């Protein structure tokens, strides 16, 4: 069995390489990395740059802004510079009036800032002004119950990395595995295989292994280009590999009912969309209904996040591996049965 599995895997690897599937996956990794690094902002909140004109003798407010957020603050020293700086979009003006400490603050908005953002800005200024005027401002201490517990949360663009790994692993398994199956249906090589001692279990396992290796290639390149070498590689690669195998087997079991990729596309889109649903919970953790948690992509997504940005502990990864393993134990024999039934109808 091992010899046959190896032969099938090598054959499928050759076919995917010569069909340029591997090249396409690696190019996709680079394109995704460019998008994450250069198109998606690290902070998507749209927080404006503060243009501070502190007219007080000490200019403490200006210094405070420069010290706290140097890349989002601009301190000016004249009315003309203040007006000119506000001409550019996404900037708010903070004009501080007073002798030594702030006595009056005029805030100038562009007009499209949300009411929530205005309240946050004004509250922050209020606290800062109180502190500068010598009033007693309480010390803030924060505690986080559910991750990220340690350090700064990752920049927004990097939080997309697990999501893109998930969608890519699903896509590779879904579309490329189906494309392989359809090419074998078209070439009728599946019939040639079926009159050999080779079995369906080996056939599907080999496809899963190849798609798993493709997903690994994507993951390694994409991770190095975005997060760098800091990921927890073993859990990351194990989870990605197993997920790609599971999705591949599911995709094959569905694709066998169709004649070509065009006919299969609608099913693939629906399945891809379904598998991507846990992304909602990923960005909005308070929303995690049971129906989403049942999807194999749910634990996968959070395990990926844990591999990149450790917070909740290794149990997340272990649990995901367990769920994916159980899913595979169910879907692999089921897929073999589905294949056999379909072949019994004369569809080889």
């Amino acid at each position, binding site marked *: 069995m091992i010899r*046959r599995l190896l032969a099938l895997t090598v054959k499928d690897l050759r076919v995917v390489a010569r069909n340029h599937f591997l090249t396409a996956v690696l190019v996709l990794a680079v394109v995704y990395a460019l998008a994450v690094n250069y198109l998606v902002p690290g902070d998507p909140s749209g927080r404006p740059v503060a243009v501070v004109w502190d007219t007080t003798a000490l200019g403490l407010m200006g210094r405070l802004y420069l010290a706290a957020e140097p890349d989002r603050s601009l301190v000016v020293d004249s009315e003309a510079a203040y007006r000119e700086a506000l001409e550019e979009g996404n900037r708010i003006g903070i004009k501080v009036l007073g002798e030594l400490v702030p006595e009056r603050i005029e805030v100038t908005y562009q007009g499209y800032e949300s009411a929530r953002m205005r309240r946050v800005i004004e509250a922050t200024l209020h606290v800062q002004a109180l502190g500068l005027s010598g009033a007693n401002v309480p010390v803030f201490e924060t505690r986080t119950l559910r991750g990220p517990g340690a350090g700064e949360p990752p920049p927004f663009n990097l939080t997309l990395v697990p999501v893109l790994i998930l969608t890519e692993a699903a896509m590779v398994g879904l579309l490329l595995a189906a494309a392989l199956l359809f090419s074998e249906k078209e070439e*009728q090589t599946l019939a*040639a*295989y079926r009159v050999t*001692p080779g*079995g369906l279990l080996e056939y599907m396992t080999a496809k899963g292994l190849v798609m798993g290796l493709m997903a690994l290639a994507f993951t390694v390149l994409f991770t190095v280009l975005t997060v760098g070498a800091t990921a927890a590689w073993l859990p990351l690669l194990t989870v990605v590999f197993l997920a790609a195998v599971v999705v591949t087997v599911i995709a094959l079991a569905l694709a066998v009912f169709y004649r070509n990729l065009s006919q299969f596309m609608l099913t693939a889109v629906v399945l891809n969309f379904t598998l991507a649903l846990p992304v909602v919970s990923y960005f909005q953790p308070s929303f995690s209904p049971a129906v989403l948690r049942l999807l194999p992509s749910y634990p996968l997504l959070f395990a990926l996040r844990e591999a990149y940005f450790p917070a909740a502990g290794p149990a997340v990864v272990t649990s995901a591996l367990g769920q994916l393993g159980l899913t595979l134990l169910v879907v692999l024999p089921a897929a073999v049965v589905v294949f056999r039934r379909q072949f019994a*109808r004369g569809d080889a």
Partner: protein
Amino acid sequence: MMIEVRDLSFTYGGSRTRAVDGVTFEVKEGEIFGFLGPNGAGKSTTQKILTGLLPLQSGEVRIAGRDIRRPGRELFNLIGVSFENPNVYLKLSGLENLQFFASLYDGPTADPMTLLRRVGLGDVAHRRAGAYSRGMRQRLVFARSLINRPKIWFLDEPTSGLDPTMTRLVKDIIREERSAGTTVFLTTHNMHIADELSDRVAFLNEGRIGALDTPRNLKLRFGEKLVVVEVRRDGRLEREVLSPTRAEDRRHLEELLTSGGLETIHSQEATLEEVFIKVTGRGLSG
């Protein structure tokens, strides 16, 4: 017996008529058994059942003594199947195709390169099969079916798409394999191939076997004995076909023999196709 088929019937889903209807035959070890019939007669369906590609719905099939309902890996190690369609991995070279299939069998296999040379593909062994002509792919499929040195060899239209030289090569290989003890189940609608190669043939029509015997016996039983003569008349050569069994034709032949105008005289036996038409009421090309 290497192949035993009893009362085999098969109906495709959604069809009311049986593609194969009560077929019974046996194939002895080392025999070339021709399964002859027009397209749609049920030949390929029968072969698919015998090779496990379609399930057995009704009847009984034993291949090398094994029930086809429970074939197991052992059976697939014994058989070789050459398909009518050139179903090869187009992205793999000819050699890679054969190496891959060789690795699927449990027992000893033939050397892929030797096989490729045997079917005239040695020079293009490293070229991708996608760049092969249809005839070359057909020869690759034919070679692939020999990779496990099969005891029972299923051939579906093995000369389809081949030029006369390659057809002869393929026929020679089939004879060599038979001489080596391989049992051959030859499915074809080409009566010349069946006539030349088969020890026995079965005529299949609309899912049923119309006749089953050696080609010679079938021709003797169903064919009409004829004599073809060429006669010179007024400087022109004329061809006539006469039946020695008819009194009128016999008299005419005696006249020709005594008149001196007779230039050639040949006996003509019925072809398998003529016998097929007589037995089934339809031609092989339909």
